[in-house]
């Protein structure tokens, strides 16, 4: 992979990560929160891939596979939680579920 410098890839990854993080902190709807989480996971995965390509190491690719698996598992748990949330509160607003308040 020539042409695209590693920095560009990393900058893209950090932009994605920041967007995801901002979404995580700002969004109330659990659906968007889950999506933001996915974005963040994928940005990290992108950073691995960029690194692996730059140094021609296979480890990064392996990590990418791991991240995808993790994201899938996370999505299934998250979606299950989301269904529960909706059934309990009839909304996807995360702030509604604040019964752990001290």
């Amino acid at each position, binding site marked *: 992979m020539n042409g695209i410098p590693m920095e560009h890839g990393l900058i893209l990854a950090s932009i994605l990560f920041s967007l995801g993080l901002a979404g995580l*902190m700002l969004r109330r709807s659990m659906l968007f*929160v889950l999506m933001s989480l996915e974005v963040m996971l994928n940005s990290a995965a992108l950073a691995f891939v960029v690194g692996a390509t730059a140094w021609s190491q296979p480890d990064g690719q392996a990590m990418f596979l791991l991240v995808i698996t993790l994201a899938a598992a996370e999505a299934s748990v998250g979606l299950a939680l989301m269904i529960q949330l909706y059934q309990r509160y009839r909304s996807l607003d995360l702030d509604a579920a*604040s019964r*752990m*308040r*001290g």
Partner: protein
Amino acid sequence: MMVTPVVLSFLFPLMGTLVLAFSSGRLGARGSSVIGVGSVGLAALATLWAVLSHTGDREIITLWTWISVGDFQPTIGLGVDGLALVMMAVITGVGFLIHLFAAWYMTGEAGITRFYAWMNLFVFSMMLLVLGDNLLLLFLGWEGVGLCSYGLIGYYYQGLDNARAAFKAFVVTRIGDVFLALGLFLVFMELGTLDIATVLTRAPEFWAEGSATANLAALLVLGGALGKSAQVPLHTWLPDAMAGPTPVSALIHAATMVTAGIYLIARLNGLFLLAPDVMLLVGVIGAISLLLAAFAALAQTDIKRVLAYSTMSQIGYMFLALGVGAFDAAIFHLVTHAFFKALLFLSAGAVIISCHHEQDMRKLGGLWRKLPVAYGGFIVGGAALVALPLVSAGFFSKDEILWQAMAADRNGLLIAGLLGAVLTGIYTVRLVLGTFHGEPGSDHARHPEPGTNLITHHLPLVVLAVLSTFIGAWLYPGLGGLFPDAPGEAVEGGHTLLQVLAIGAVVAGLALAGWLFLMRRPWLDDVASKGAGASLWKLWHHAWGFDALFDRVLVRPWQWSVRMLRFDFINLIMNLPALIARGFNAGLVRSQNGRTRSYAVVMVFGATVILLALALVPGGVA
């Protein structure tokens, strides 16, 4: 245990107490009276036996060693000598007559068993007080009589005032007792013993006359005597103590317990002779008390309070005698005073019961024809109280006191004594006139029910009346040999002059009283009801306002501090760590708001801080 008459004399009342206390009311009023009176009667007989078999030397009966740790070896031991026997005779003899009278006085009262149990316990404790041959056993009796006094003043427990009077009597005397206890600690530390005879022999060896330690020890013992004997400034409990039944006032607050202070100082005479300054103080306190109390007695309306103040005044005479070193004279007056004051109190009791518990002089009057026995008792007792020359017992003992004061060259004390004699005459006449003469002040006084019982009503009064005349004075054996020489021994002549003065004072008092109360009555009432006269009356009525003073200075601050401390501020301070922990808890709980997003924010913030720290700290990441 050796069974000697002395031991029996105090075991009988103790057994009486125990039987009464454990009878749980099964004995009935009659049975309780028989046991209560009988036990003291037996004690009196045992005392008589002891007196007759007494050889003249001090006899020590050690029952057992109380405590034995190192040098501290107080015993339960009895010291029998003339002084103890005289006191025992007074306690059991007068005590028996008063118990007998109580059988009449207390008829129909609830809790008669309790009454006799306390009275017997009192006799027992008082006997231990005078018999104890060491100071700790004396202290046992000393506190015991205080407890009995508490129980008997509060006998009518339903009145809260009675409970307060009992409480006050106990606490005020307890203050004195603490001084006595400190005196005991000092004596034991310095002399290494509490045995009275040994203390008296060691004291002059260890202490120089007038040394600070001797003064301090005498002063502390004096503190105890002041409390028990109701002398200024620890006297305020005595008038209130009249809340108890009248036989109690007669026995405890006139004849015996209040004279315990006199006994104590006379017993420890050697200690006091080493402290001349304290001796002077004793005399001065006596003089002050006798005058204060005499003035206060002038302005009382309750018969028993008049008698209470007169008791305080007469004890003042005894202190005066002690103060000039005339121990024998003090004991002499103690004995005659026990006779005539018991007589006065019992006569007053007869009046009170006959008039359905009316004891306000303003509501009595005109009783002399209807209550001849009580009237006779008052006349004879009053005569002894004012020291009517030659025929009364009080004359001989009071004359002796004044003569010793004169011989000791204490003219101030002598003048106080003479002035007191004048005042005594006035208040006694006022008491007799107010109670028995004039117009009856209420229906109760118009239709009295005189006591008729020969044994329980007439006999005690008559016997005490006989003892209050010169016969009582003759019976006193004289204890000169037991005490250091009184000042009068060394002085020749002058006694006649003193007698003239004393008789003059008595006559002056009586004449003044007669003139005031018989001839100038309206004028007197007029003066006493307005302007300065009224304030003076009020001042005397409240006995110079000592109660109000102590209320301000001691009682209120005490109550205030109790109220302030009630919630245990030290504990509240100790709760501070708990409060701080709770504060932290409140703060941290706030951050736990249950919102996932804010947790995320905090997490990001934390992660950022850590990353920044790692990046910025030199050598951190590199």
